[in-house]
C-alpha cells in the first residue's frame, strides 16, 4: 500500500493550504456577491486574513519555535520573514478598511443608502432621468 501512504503524506503536507483556499474563496465570494457595502468590506477582510494564514503557514517548521532567540544553539526557529511581511500586510489591511468605511459613511450620507442595488438605480436615474424598470429606489 505504498501509494496510499504517499497520498496521506501529501495530504498532510498540503491540507492547510487547501483550507486557506476555501476560506479565501469564501471571503472573495462575500466581497463580489453581496450588495451591502459594509458587508463587502467584511468579505475583503476575510479574504485578506486568509491570505495572511497562507503566508504564515509557509513559514512554519514542524518542531520549530517562534523566531525569538533563546540562546540555545539547537533551537529550530520558524521562518521570520513571512511574519514580517504579514505584519506589514495587516497594517495595509486596516488602512484600507478605515478608508473604505469612511467612504461608506459619506455614501450613506449623500445617497441615503449603502445597498449597491439602490445606488445603481439612483445612478441610472441620474444618467437617464428615468427610473429603471422594475422597482423604485428609496
Amino acid at each position, binding site marked *: 500500500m505504498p501509494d496510499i501512504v504517499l497520498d496521506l503524506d501529501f495530504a*498532510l*503536507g*498540503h*491540507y492547510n*493550504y*487547501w483550507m486557506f*483556499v476555501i*476560506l*479565501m*474563496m*469564501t471571503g*472573495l465570494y462575500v466581497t*463580489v*456577491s453581496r450588495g*451591502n457595502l*459594509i*458587508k463587502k468590506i*467584511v*468579505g475583503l*477582510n*476575510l479574504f485578506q486574513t486568509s491570505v*495572511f494564514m497562507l503566508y*504564515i*503557514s*509557509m*513559514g*512554519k*517548521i*514542524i*518542531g*520549530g519555535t*517562534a*523566531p*525569538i*532567540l533563546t540562546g540555545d544553539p539547537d533551537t*529550530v*526557529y*520558524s521562518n*521570520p*520573514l513571512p*511574519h514580517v511581511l504579514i*505584519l*506589514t500586510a*495587516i*497594517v*495595509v*489591511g*486596516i*488602512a484600507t*478598511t*478605515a*478608508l473604505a*468605511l*469612511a467612504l461608506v*459613511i*459619506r455614501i*450613506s*450620507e449623500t445617497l441615503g443608502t*449603502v445597498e449597491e*442595488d439602490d445606488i445603481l438605480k439612483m445612478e441610472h436615474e441620474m444618467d437617464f432621468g428615468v427610473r429603471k424598470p422594475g422597482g423604485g429606489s428609496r
Partner: protein
Amino acid sequence: MSADLLGIAIIDILLFTFLVVTAIAIMHLRNLFAVVMLAGVFSLLSASLFVTLDAVDVAFTEAAVGAGISTVLMLGTLALTVREEKKPAHSVFLPVLVCLVAGAALIYGTLDMPAFGSADAPIHLHVAPAYIERTPIDTGVPNIVTAVLASYRGYDTLGETAVIFTAAIAVLLLLGAGIRQSGKDGGKE
C-alpha cells in the same frame, strides 16, 4: 515527526472548522451587527492559528487590529449607517464562477508547493537562515522579527508607516478634521 504533524493537524483542523463556520455565518447573516462581531471572532480565531504556527507577533497584531480597532471602526460605521443588510436581489452566478475558477487555480498552484512544515523547503534555505544567523551578530536584538522588520527590511516598515499615515490623511480628507460640525458634511460648504 509524523506524530507532531498529526497533532498540529488536529488542532489546525479544529480551528479551521471554527473559521469556516464563522465565515459561512458571516456570509448568511443579514444583521450587520452580528456580522461585525463574527468578523472579530474570525480575527481572534486566526490569531490563535497564528500562535500555533509560531507567529506570535502576527497573532498579537491580528488580535489588536482585526478584533480590536477594525471592530470599533465597523461599529462606528454601523452607528452612522444601517444595521440590516437588504436581501440580495441579483444573480449569484458570476460571483460563484469567479470564486470557483480562482479557487481551482489556487488549488492547482498548491499541488507543487513544498509540504507544510518541512524544514528543507526552499523558503527555509535561502534568506531566512541568514536572518536567524546574523540577527544576534548584527543587531543584538533577540526578537528576529523585530530585527528584520525594523532593520533588514526597515524600508518596508517605513512604507507601512506611510500607508497608515495615508489612511489618516484620506479619512480626514473625506470626513473632515474631526471638529464637530453643526450641519451635515454633505459637501455644500
